[in-house]
């Protein structure tokens, strides 16, 4: 095939990018080379629109062993233990083929983690669908949930937490973000940096097929009406092979024969070989005839661009091939020496004894395009005033039941019951709490993890929204008694070529950066997914934050269910009555404008740390952060989980009942304490200048407000639990 500008454009490259390739090579690339450039230079692999801004994120900290730039981030959890974790998107494939798209998303992120030598110990996910009324939503939801379960359950890794939302902006472009945590010994972490000359380059795992060719390029473009035709670009997952690959890799890693290892994810053999060479400042030579292929007559172009799953590339020490091969034979996996490291600093490919590609590695990596895209700054919207006549006819419990049954608040049990969340025997906090918690096997330590996003807030004001998501993650970890350590982010946005979408990206990233800096909660890994749009309509900006924290003694873990009758319940953090962008404003008042609640980082940090002090002093019986739906929704969930009632009294300060109960002011938690400890708790709160309200006393099986109006907990529970099950069974 003759390569020209049009062929390059068909590969998703811009005309000036093609010109730059010709200039760098000082010749016209052949078709294989063009394929390689298109795979490396697309948005998904090159981060060409985001790199400039991602640089501003805080990525260092005392507990950070490895920040962004590797397969995943690594943090120190003491005693020579470390946690490897990352979140990644698989949005585009999941919309085209929900089961396989979601399944391979889970497979891909687990590979990123075990490539570094860590055994995966927990999976999480953040999934976002269109309006429940949209004709595709139900099938997409079912397919995605089955796909996530199908892969994770087979791997035997518990899925411990997640987040699901519905919004019409995802009608034409759902989001599927998968996160994995792995456990590794600090001195046994593996990296992707190749080193040494003439070292054997080994291919292991599944055979290479024609699936997923140009998957990464597809993920770097917008959808249009012909999207169904892209089905062949979706990879097909085989979790059983991945399980074998996991065990085989960990067995090989127990020895000392690996110099570098890299999984073949997006852009397959192309990006894995180039990344290893680039990081090691070396060249790599590959004989493509040696690559195990699933189908006959695959061309160099297809072999290099295939995104077949469950494959790894390894640079081994010389002479260790036989010993390594034995392990892969035991697990019935392909093992092939396909090339070697060279000093050429080029990627050189041979096929049928002919050289089919010859590209300097730096042209693909350092010289890849980087854009400073134009972006528009968002204005802070004007505040709305809640009008008395709009709320005076409202009955609080009708509103509460409606909000508890809202698709974005309701119980997601239908989803997480389909995920094996107890395998490995260390899940001590199951899905449905503020964060999932797993013990570090055989120790007293436990790791908490949560995944959060607030697209509504980010859409209303990206800078505030970006900060808020990080704070929410911080709060969710603290609510289970964990000390927050670090985050991973999955940045889902519309087109970077659209100034407004780009502005949302830039400002959300700025917000994330400010909050993570202030809270000492650095970003150690992540992924950017642009072009989440169909035609010209982008999704609401949806940065998803995966937070990880440590509980030193798992017996001190906190859960949200109310524990004991006669215990006292407090709200800590001040309620100002911010209704704009709250679930109440959007679903009850139908008011979609206004600013999101303000984020005060000083308060977040101070209140969070003070709550950790209370937990350390064994003063907290249950805790839950206040988020969507405000105080009353948080309390209702604690009642439902604990199967206990409460009598709530609104404190006397000025705002009215509705504003007090449904406002979504940030930096607040509900805590349960023993009455006799009130003085101790109050002293600690006062000493740290943390505002608190005494909300009520636990008892009975009803939720009362000011002794008067009441509703049974069973009724609330039914509202909360039935929506999703009913929706999916219709």
């Amino acid at each position: 095939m003759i390569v020209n500008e049009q062929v390059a454009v068909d590969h998703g490259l811009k005309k000036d990018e093609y010109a730059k390739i010709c200039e760098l090579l000082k010749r016209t690339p052949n078709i294989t080379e063009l394929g390689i450039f298109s795979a490396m230079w697309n948005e998904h692999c090159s981060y060409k629109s985001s790199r400039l801004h991602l640089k501003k994120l805080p990525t260092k900290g005392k507990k950070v062993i490895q920040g962004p730039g590797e397969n995943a981030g690594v943090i120190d959890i003491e005693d020579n233990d470390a946690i490897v974790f990352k979140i990644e998107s698989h949005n585009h494939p999941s919309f085209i083929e929900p089961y396989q798209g979601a399944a391979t998303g889970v497979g891909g992120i687990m590979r990123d983690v075990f490539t570094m030598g860590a055994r995966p110990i927990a999976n999480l996910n953040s999934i976002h669908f269109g309006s429940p009324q949209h004709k595709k939503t139900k099938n997409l939801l079912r397919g995605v949930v089955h796909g996530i379960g199908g892969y994770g359950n087979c791997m035997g890794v518990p899925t411990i937490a997640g987040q699901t939302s519905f919004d019409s902006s995802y009608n034409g472009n759902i989001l599927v973000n998968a996160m994995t945590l792995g456990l590794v010994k600090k001195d046994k972490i593996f990296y992707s940096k190749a080193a040494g000359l003439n070292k054997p380059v080994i291919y292991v795992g599944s055979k290479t097929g024609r699936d997923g060719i140009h998957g990464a390029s597809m993920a770097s473009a917008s959808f249009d009406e012909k999207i169904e035709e892209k089905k062949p670009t979706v990879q097909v997952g085989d979790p059983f092979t991945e399980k074998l690959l996991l065990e085989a890799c960990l067995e090989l890693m127990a020895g000392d024969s690996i110099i570098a290892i890299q999984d073949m994810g997006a852009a397959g053999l192309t990006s894995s070989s180039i990344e290893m060479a680039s990081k090691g400042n070396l060249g790599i030579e590959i004989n493509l005839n040696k690559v195990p292929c699933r189908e006959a007559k695959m061309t160099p172009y297809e072999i290099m661009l295939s995104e077949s799953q469950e494959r790894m590339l390894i640079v081994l020490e010389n002479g260790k091939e036989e010993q390594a091969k034995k392990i892969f034979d035991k697990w019935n996996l392909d093992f092939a020496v396909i090339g070697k490291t060279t000093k050429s600093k080029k990627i050189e490919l041979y096929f049928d004894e002919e050289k089919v590609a010859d590209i300097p590695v730096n042209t693909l990596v350092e010289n890849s395009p980087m854009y400073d895209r134009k972006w528009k700054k968002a204005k802070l919207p004007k505040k709305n005033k809640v009008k008395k006549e709009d709320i005076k006819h409202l009955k609080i419990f009708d509103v509460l039941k409606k909000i508890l049954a809202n698709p974005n608040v309701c119980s997601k049990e239908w989803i997480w019951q389909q995920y094996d969340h107890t395998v490995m025997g260390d899940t001590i906090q199951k899905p449905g709490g503020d964060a999932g918690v797993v013990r570090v096997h055989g120790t007293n330590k436990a790791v908490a993890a949560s995944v959060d996003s607030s697209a509504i807030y980010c859409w209303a004001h990206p800078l505030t929204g970006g900060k808020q998501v990080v704070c929410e993650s911080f709060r969710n970890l603290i609510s289970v008694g964990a000390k927050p350590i670090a985050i991973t982010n999955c940045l889902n946005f519309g087109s970077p070529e659209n100034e407004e979408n780009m502005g949302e990206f830039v400002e959300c990233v700025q917000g994330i950066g400010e909050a993570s800096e202030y809270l000492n909660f650095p970003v150690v890994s992540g992924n950017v997914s642009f072009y989440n749009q169909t035609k010209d309509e982008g999704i609401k900006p949806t940065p998803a934050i995966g937070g990880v924290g440590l509980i030193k003694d798992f017996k001190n873990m906190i859960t949200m269910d109310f524990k004991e009758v006669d215990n006292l319940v407090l709200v800590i953090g001040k309620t100002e009555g911010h209704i704009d962008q709250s679930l109440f404003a959007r679903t009850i008042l139908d008011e979609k404008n206004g600013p999101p609640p303000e984020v005060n980082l000083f308060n977040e940090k101070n209140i969070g740390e003070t709550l950790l002090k209370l937990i350390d002093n064994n003063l907290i019986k249950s805790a839950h952060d206040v988020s969507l739906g405000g105080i009353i929704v948080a309390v209702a969930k604690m009642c439902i989980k604990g199967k206990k009632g409460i009598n709530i009294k609104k404190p006397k300060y000025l705002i009215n009942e509705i504003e007090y109960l449904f406002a979504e002011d940030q930096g607040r938690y509900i805590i349960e304490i023993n009455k006799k400890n009130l003085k101790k708790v109050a002293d600690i709160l006062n000493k740290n200048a943390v505002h608190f309200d005494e909300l009520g006393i636990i008892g009975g099986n009803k939720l009362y407000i000011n002794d008067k109006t009441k509703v049974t907990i069973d009724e609330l529970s039914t509202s909360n639990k039935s929506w999703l099950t009913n929706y999916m069974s219709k």
Partner: protein
Amino acid sequence: MKSSVITFPGSNCDRDINVALKKFGFKNKMVWHADVELPKSDLVVLPGGFSYGDYLRCGSMASKSKIMQSVINFANSGGMVMGICNGFQILVESGLVPGVLLRNKYLEFICKNVFVKINNKQNKYFKNVDNEVLEFHIAHNEGNYFCSNDQLKEIEDNNQIAIKYCDENGKIEDQFNPNGSIKNIAGIFNKEKNVLGMMPHPERMIDTSLSGEDGSLFFKNLINNLK
């Protein structure tokens, strides 16, 4: 007491059952599926997981693996063999216990705590368990037990039903049946009651910090019965 846990390439509850057996006093050995000989054991466990990927009927390939011939011989000579979840599926496929396991009634994987009522205590697995009802945990996609009417009659006549899904008070009704199993069957024995296949995972209920303690009760009792 010596136990052996068979590890198939896709087993994923092998570590969990190893932890449980050791916790309650078994000297446990892990045995690779490609091995031919079974170590001397008082109990052999086929763990949960996806043995060979289970892209064919669950457990069918595993039932033909090298080690299974020894397990079958061991069972036929009266040895204690317990299959949990995928292990149950392998037992069914090997013909060590009757019936088949179909896909769950609602076509969905299900992971949750369930209650089971012990139907027969005249065997080494459940003898001396004080409780009538145990709280166990299930996590499976193909646990819908089925057999022909003739087989069912035979199973009932021989008292081969081990445990049935029920509520916390032991009431056996359709609404407490998580997967559509015939007669709410959660586990069955072979005729001689030395082989037990069950969908629930007692090894996930051995610690108050996890889901509960009824698994501890089961294992403590089991090792005492074997002594």
